[in-house]
């Protein structure tokens, strides 16, 4: 475990150095993310110009939900996205070999190579929106709910990671699997809508089997809806994300056995 921490800190340092040497690119990527985030908020403010609430969600509660999802998605992008998204390319070119021969866990090796500072800053922006929404709602959450909220964010990141890894692992069978990476963005899309809009069957499938709907909804509910059942919600999130993570690891190992190197 300590060895992995050491390796990870070296990789973090390397990618920071690399990133800061391309400053313009760094800033432009932040602009892209900020634009998308603002677009989401504008979309919901147009909708809430027409209705007062969606189910039991009011305007600022939904903004808080979007901000929460922004934090989770950006944290995932900061630590894992580029690495896992690059897997299809590694498989296609045969460059995966050099990672597989390393004396560390293969999943760790492909997941942690790069780190994006710009996404961490964008996650911070999501946090600012969450705080602003709390102020608009006039809510001061208890220390306990804040703690639960922060823990829930981590489990949300785990769900993102599991989905992305499973999609990317399909590239062992299909060459040129960029379509799969788009699949991830499509799943992400339904994660930031309030859970009440979904019918029961849909909510079960995307709450337990592919648990995207709960990624942001459960943390947001824990933070702002003290009358809910935080224990049950937390249990749901922990159980579903652990199962998803475990399944993605099993699938990764299974897929890896199908790897036939493309290089000489």
């Amino acid at each position, binding site marked *: 475990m300590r060895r992995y921490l050491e390796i990870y800190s070296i990789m973090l340092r390397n990618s920071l150095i690399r990133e800061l040497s391309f400053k313009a690119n760094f800033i432009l990527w932040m602009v892209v993310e900020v634009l998308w985030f603002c677009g989401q908020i504008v*979309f919901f403010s147009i909708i809430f*110009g027409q209705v007062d609430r969606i189910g039991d969600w009011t305007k600022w509660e939904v903004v808080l939900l979007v901000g929460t999802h922004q934090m989770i998605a950006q944290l995932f992008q900061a630590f894992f996205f580029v690495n896992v998204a690059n897997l299809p390319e590694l498989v296609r070119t045969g460059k995966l070999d050099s990672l597989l021969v390393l004396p560390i866990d293969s999943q760790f090796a492909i997941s942690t190579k790069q780190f994006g500072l710009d996404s961490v800053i964008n996650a911070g922006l999501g946090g600012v929106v969450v705080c602003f929404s709390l102020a608009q709602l006039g809510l001061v959450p208890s220390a306990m709910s804040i703690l639960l909220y922060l823990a829930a964010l981590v489990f949300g990141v785990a769900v993102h990671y599991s989905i992305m890894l499973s999609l990317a692992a399909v590239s062992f069978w299909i060459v*040129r699997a960029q*379509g799969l990476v788009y699949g991830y963005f499509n799943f992400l*899309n339904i994660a930031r809508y309030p859970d009440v*809009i979904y019918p029961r069957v849909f909510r079960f499938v995307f709450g337990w089997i592919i648990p995207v709907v709960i990624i942001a909804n459960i943390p947001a509910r824990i933070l702002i809806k003290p009358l809910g059942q935080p224990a049950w919600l937390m249990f749901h999130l922990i159980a579903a994300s652990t199962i998803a993570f475990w399944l993605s690891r099993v699938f990764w190992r299974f897929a890896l056995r199908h790897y036939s190197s493309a290089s000489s």
Partner: protein
Amino acid sequence: MTSAKIYKYISVFNIGLQNTFVYRWNYFLRAIFGLIPLAGTVFLWRAIFHERGGGLHGYDYGSMIYYYLLTLLVSNLVTPTEDEWQIAADIREGQINSFLTKPMSYLAYRFSIFLSARLVYTAVTLPPIALIFLYFRHYITLPGDAMTYVYTLISLLMAAFMQFFITYSLAMMAFWILEISTVVFIVYSFEYFLGGQMFPIDIMPPAVQLVMKWLPFYYELFCPIAIFMGRLQGAELAQALSIQASWLVVSWMAARFMWKRGLGHYQAVGG
């Protein structure tokens, strides 16, 4: 154009067909996954209309769903998917050297590839989309007036040309900068929100709409759909079509200008 010239580009078109067809599974997966956000959108609007209990800027639940179905279909028809990355790679890796020596316009070459890719993409993604249309068949209303089809077709063609020229101009930036993806994604986010992919433009406040009408994004996707749904008529329709035609000319000139300036800057790396 002489027939020999046309033949040349027809064979490029054929090659493009074959190259795209190799990746049919990639496209098919993309189309299937593309249905997930559609489900989210449908449920979200169902909840909104349920809450509101009435129409919204002339849309009801059915016509709103119909709108999103049409964006799905039209964006498959007119939006380039990988062209910008391919063109940028051609430039970065020095592949365009071989085009400079051929008696062929790079713009026309890329356009033939674009057409063939759209054809294959639409064909591959049609079965899932057709099923969705079938499922929502009660919400589909076809225009009664024959001229509406003509106007829609004209607008659709102009949208396709515009999108191609814009993509081409953006990709030309690879002559100056190594990595064009940030620029591409910035423009893409404008297209997504201001082009009608996220929501129909005409539910926005009137003042905002007035500005949007003069921006090119409005004409990349929303305009043909609005015409088809009968939401643009009479003087408004004429105005929209003429603004769209102007943007088409501007984007075409931009594409030619970027190519000319880019070549002046080009140093033929690799080759």
